[in-house]
């Protein structure tokens, strides 16, 4: 079995290449810190459900910028739990209660203002405000944080993994290794193992820093977060090494960033896409980061377990396995056997 041989060498190389280690661990922390410092709130399309509301209130709300639906209490709560709607307006003992979904703080002010206008009542005084997930203190950093963790892990693993595999090609070691009796899958497997071990460390440090130092909102299980980030890192690694086959040098590897990385930023949920046309939203479904981001948000903001996130985990695994298989196949260019 040659997989551990390759993995060991990769870890040794990491030990010698402190800058790459820093790039993968410190850079995400630094950028997260910067975003934490500057992020501000903005508005977007929101969906709100009303339960047993007076006709006048409903009409007033519906005339605004929000999408309003009338639901029964049970359905509304379920939809709120799955973050399908942003807020629920209901009455308890003749007193209005505004229940905000809570994991997206960008729309809180918008909803509060609209409800206040529709009902002519002071929010917080006559209308009680509750949060289904999260708390009043949530801001956009808490909301986008999980996505950013996923994004930076994806990005830096993609770059470092892709470039190091590319260097194997350009310095001739890839071909040299393939003149040994190694199987192609063992080489790819060794890369995944070596980087996998390293990305576990990377994920632990970044997640701990985000949660405990930057105080990112986190109600879920830390192990689940690490599981998703590891899965995301492996997907990024397999994609990076695969695309490195189509780059002649490091600079061409960097050229994949606007093609592969930047689009994922726009469609993975960092920016709200609910208001966009269906086919545009579909683009996001083709991107690994979308599933990683959804899963991380689910765990960190809504304490979802892996059962709730089956689909996301499944899709990440599919991406990972497909990219890995293509990697093994791409090596045929160097050796048919």
């Amino acid at each position, binding site marked *: 079995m040659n997989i551990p041989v390759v993995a060991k*060498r990769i870890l040794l*190389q990491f030990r010698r290449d402190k800058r790459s280690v820093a790039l993968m661990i410190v850079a995400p922390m630094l950028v997260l810190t910067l975003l934490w410092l500057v992020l501000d709130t903005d508005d977007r399309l929101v969906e709100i459900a009303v339960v047993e509301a007076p006709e006048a209130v409903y009409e007033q709300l519906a005339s605004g910028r929000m999408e309003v639906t009338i639901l029964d209490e049970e359905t509304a709560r379920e939809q709120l739990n799955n973050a399908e709607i942003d807020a629920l307006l209901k009455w308890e003992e003749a007193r209005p209660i505004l229940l905000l979904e809570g994991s997206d703080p960008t729309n809180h002010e918008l909803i509060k203002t609209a409800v206040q206008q529709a009902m002519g009542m002071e929010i917080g005084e006559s209308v009680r405000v509750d949060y289904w997930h999260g708390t009043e203190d949530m801001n956009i950093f808490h909301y986008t944080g999980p996505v950013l963790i996923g994004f930076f892990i994806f990005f830096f693993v993609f770059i470092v993994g892709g470039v190091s595999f590319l260097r194997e090609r350009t*310095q001739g070691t890839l*071909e040299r290794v393939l*003149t*040994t009796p190694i199987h192609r899958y063992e080489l790819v497997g060794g890369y995944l193992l070596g980087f996998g071990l390293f990305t576990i460390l990377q994920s632990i440090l970044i997640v701990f820093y985000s949660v405990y130092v930057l105080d990112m909102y986190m109600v879920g299980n830390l192990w689940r977060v690490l599981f998703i980030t590891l899965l995301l890192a492996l997907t990024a690694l397999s994609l990076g090494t695969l695309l490195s086959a189509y780059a002649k040098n490091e600079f061409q590897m960097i050229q994949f960033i606007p093609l592969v990385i930047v689009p994922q930023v726009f469609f993975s949920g960092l920016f709200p896409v609910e208001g966009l046309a269906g086919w545009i939203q579909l683009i996001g479904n083709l991107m690994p980061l979308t599933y990683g981001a959804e899963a991380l948000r689910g765990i960190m903001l809504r304490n979802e377990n892996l059962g709730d996130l089956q689909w996301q985990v499944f899709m990440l695994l599919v991406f990972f396995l497909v990219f890995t298989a293509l990697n093994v196949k791409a090596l045929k260019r160097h050796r048919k*056997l």
Partner: protein
Amino acid sequence: MIELNGVSHSFGNIKVLEDINLSVDKGEVFGLLGPSGSGKTTLVRIMTGMIVPDEGRVRLRDQEMPKRSLMKRFGYMAQEDALYQELTAWENLDFFASFYLRKKKKERMEHVLHITGLTEYKERPVFKFSGGMKRRLSLAIALVHNPDILILDEPTTGLDPVLRRSIWSEFYQLKENGKTILITTHALDEAEKCDRLAMLRGGKVIAAGSPGEWKKELRTDSLEDVFLHYGGGDI
């Protein structure tokens, strides 16, 4: 030990090798001589199984290439030093040795470092190595699993005469132990040291024989004349 029959290969529509036939016998130092661009490296890569030729057959130890079990049987040294710059000589050697050896690995590693004269530099990272040291480390890697066949692509290019001589004495030592060595070169003084030669030009073998035979045939003392005679003046 190495046998090529009717090997032809093209990259795109450029024909790199045309109908190559040659065989290397056990215990022989065989030289593949030719100017750069003549197809030497492609031919070597075909022998190592990295490239499957468009036409023709390649046999190593009477078995058809490419075949995984044969990969253990030869040691290969590429034209460019394929080494991990940030790792030490020992770590590089250990990495490649691990694909072949389990028991006796350390012993073999110490041995090949000794014969290439690198023992005292084994803890040094490769990026601090001189060109000659890198060549010697590449040779050590090719030798580490004690293969019967050595396929060496320009093993002494860029080395000083002293180092060259020491590497050649190592080749003769290996030959005496029954190893078969195929080297490529464009240096005539090296060609002289081979038992047999094949001259490659424009993807074809234009002459084959031993240096002595050639000189006799053309009634000259210098291999350079032979080279010019077969190769034409426009190399």
